[in-house]
C-alpha cells in the first residue's frame, strides 16, 4: 500500500511539486468552476484558451520565447476579452454565451494574424502551455498567489455573487454592486485559467475547473457545499491521476482529467440528484 500510494511522492521531488501545484489549483478552481457552471458559462475555459493567443504573441514579439512576458500578455488579453464580453452582456441586449463567443473569436483571429505576420515557426501556445510534471518555483508561486487571491476575493463578495446569480434584479434594486461583482468574478476566472495554462497546460486547467463542478452538481443543492465538493473531487482526481500516470505510465494531464471524468460519470449515475435516482421509482413516501 505504501509503495503504491506514498512511495512515488516520497522518492521524487517532481511528484511532490506536481501534487502540491495541482492540489492548490483544485482548491482555487473548484468554486470558480461551480459559479461558472451555474451561470451557464461552462465553455468559457475553452474559449479563453484560444483567446489569449494575441497576448502571448505580443509578449513573444517583444521578448522572444520568454514565459513571463507571454503569460502576462495572456492575462492582459484574457482580461480584456472576459471583461469586454461581460460588460456587453450586462449593459446590452446580448447574452453571455454570445458575447464571449464573439470576443474570443475576434481575439483568436487577431492572434493568428499577429503570429503569421511575424513569421514564427514555433507553435507559441505549445511553448506557453506547461505540464504539471515541470512545476518550478516560479510556477508554484504563481499558482499559490492565484489561489490566495481567489479565495479572498470569493470570500469577500460571496453574498453578492450568490445574489447576483439568484436574483439580479433584486440586487440592482438594493445595491449597485452587481456589475462590479460580476466583473470581479470574471477577473478571477481569467487569472485561474491563464495561470493554470501556463503552469499546467490547457487540458488540466480547464478540466480541473469544470469537471469537479459539473460532478458536484449531482450531490448537493446548495452552493457552499457544492463548492466544497468540487474542491474535494478535484483534489482526489489530482492524487489519483498522478498515481496512475506514475504506475501505468500515462501522460499526467489526461490521467488527472480522466480521473475527474470517472467521478463525473459516477456522480451522474449514483449522485443524490443523479440519473439513476430519478429513474428509480421511489418505493415509499411520507404520510405528511
Amino acid at each position, binding site marked *: 500500500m505504501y509503495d503504491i500510494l506514498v512511495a*512515488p511522492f516520497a*522518492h*521524487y*521531488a*517532481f*511528484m511532490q*511539486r*506536481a501534487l502540491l501545484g495541482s492540489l492548490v489549483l483544485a482548491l482555487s478552481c473548484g468554486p470558480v468552476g461551480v459559479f461558472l457552471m451555474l451561470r451557464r458559462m461552462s465553455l468559457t475555459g475553452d474559449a479563453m484558451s484560444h483567446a489569449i493567443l494575441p497576448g502571448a504573441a505580443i509578449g513573444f514579439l517583444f521578448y522572444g520565447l520568454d*514565459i513571463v512576458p507571454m503569460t502576462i500578455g495572456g492575462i492582459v488579453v484574457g482580461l480584456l476579452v472576459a471583461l469586454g464580453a461581460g460588460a456587453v452582456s450586462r449593459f446590452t441586449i446580448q447574452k453571455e454565451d454570445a458575447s464571449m463567443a464573439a470576443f474570443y473569436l475576434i481575439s483568436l483571429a487577431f492572434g493568428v494574424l499577429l503570429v*503569421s505576420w511575424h*513569421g*514564427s*515557426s*514555433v*507553435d507559441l501556445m*505549445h*511553448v506557453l502551455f*506547461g*505540464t504539471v*510534471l*515541470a*512545476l*518550478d518555483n516560479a*510556477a508554484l508561486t504563481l499558482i499559490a498567489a492565484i489561489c490566495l487571491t481567489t479565495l479572498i476575493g470569493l470570500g469577500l463578495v460571496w453574498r453578492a455573487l450568490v445574489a447576483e446569480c439568484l436574483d439580479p434584479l433584486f440586487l440592482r434594486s438594493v445595491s449597485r454592486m452587481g456589475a462590479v461583482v460580476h466583473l470581479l468574478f470574471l477577473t478571477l476566472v481569467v487569472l485561474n485559467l491563464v495561470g493554470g495554462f501556463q503552469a499546467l*497546460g490547457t487540458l488540466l486547467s480547464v478540466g480541473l475547473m469544470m469537471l469537479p463542478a459539473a460532478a458536484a452538481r449531482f450531490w448537493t443543492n446548495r452552493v457552499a457545499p457544492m463548492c466544497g465538493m468540487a474542491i474535494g473531487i478535484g483534489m482526489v482526481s489530482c492524487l489519483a491521476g*498522478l498515481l496512475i*500516470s*506514475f*504506475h*501505468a*505510465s*500515462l*501522460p*499526467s*494531464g*489526461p*490521467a488527472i482529467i480522466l480521473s475527474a471524468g470517472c467521478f463525473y460519470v459516477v456522480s451522474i449515475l449514483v449522485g443524490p440528484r443523479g440519473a439513476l435516482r430519478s429513474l428509480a421509482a421511489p418505493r415509499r413516501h411520507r404520510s405528511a
Partner: protein
Amino acid sequence: MSKILKFASLVSLMMLSPALLATASGADLNVVASFSIIADLAKNVGGDRVEITTIVGPDGDAHVYEPKPADAVAMSKADVVLVNGLDFEGFLSRLVETSATAAPVVELTRGVTPMKLADEPAGHAHPEDEAAKQAGHHHGEYDPHAWQSIANAEIYVKNIADAFCGADKAGCATYTANATTYLDKLATLETAVKTSIAGIPKEKRVIITSHDAFGYFEHAYGLEFLAPEGISTESEASAADVAKLVDQVRHDKASAIFLENVTNASLIRQIANETGLKVGGTLYSDALSQETGPASTYIDMVHHNIETIKAAILGS
C-alpha cells in the same frame, strides 16, 4: 524567413514565362525544402543555381507546424520539393494537396535504412524503457530523425543531387560537383565525431534530452540518449517516464542533461533541479539555429552538438 519568402515569391512571379526560357537561360531552380536542415543540405548541393524556400525555418518545430497560405503558394511555384519523409512532416500531405503542385516531392530518406521505433541499439538492453518510449509515440512506426547519422545525411545529399539533376539537366554537372565536395566535408565531419566520442569514457556515454530525436546518432556513434517526451514534441510525458530519468541520473547512469531548441525547457529543468545535474547547454535536434547562432548549417550543428555533449560530460 520572411525575406526569403518575399524573394521567392518575386522570383516565382518571374517564372511565369515558359519553362523553355527557364532552362535555356539557366535561371534559378525553385526548390522548396520542408525544414531548415535539408534546406542547408540543398543549398550546398545547388549553390547559386537554386532558390530555396524553407517551410519550417530555424528554431522551428516541424512536429507541430501548421502551414500558411504562403507555403502553399511557394509549393505551387516550386520545381522540386524536398521533404524528409518517414512521417516527419505531419502537415505535408495536406499542403501538397492544397497547393496542387506539379513539382516532384522527393523523400530524402529513400535508401536510408530506417530505424523502427522499437529498435534498440546493439549493446543496450532496457526492456523497461521500451514501454515508456512506446507510450509517447505516434506519427508512424519509424523514427524520422534519420539525418542525425552522417552516413544517412550523405544519402540525403545524393538524393538531392539526383532530384536537382532530374529537374534541371543543364545544371547536372554543377550539382554533382557540389555534391562531391560536400560529401567530402561530411566524411571529414564523421571522422571528427567518432574521434570525439572515443575520447569520452564508455560508462559516461548516457545523456538526457527533451525528446527522442537522436536515435540514429545513438545507433551510429554509441552515445545513449534518454528523453521524457517521445519521438514527437506533441506527445506529453508521463510521471513514470520522468521518474525513470531521475532514477537514471541518480544511479549515476546519466552524465549530462540538455535543452533543445524546439521544446519547452521546463521539464528538463525540473529533472536537472531534482537530480542536481546542471543543464549542459542546448542541443539542436530538429532544426538549425538562426544565422547568428551556433548551429546555422548542418555541419555546424553536428559540431556544436558533439562539442557541447563532450564538454558537459567531461566537465561533470
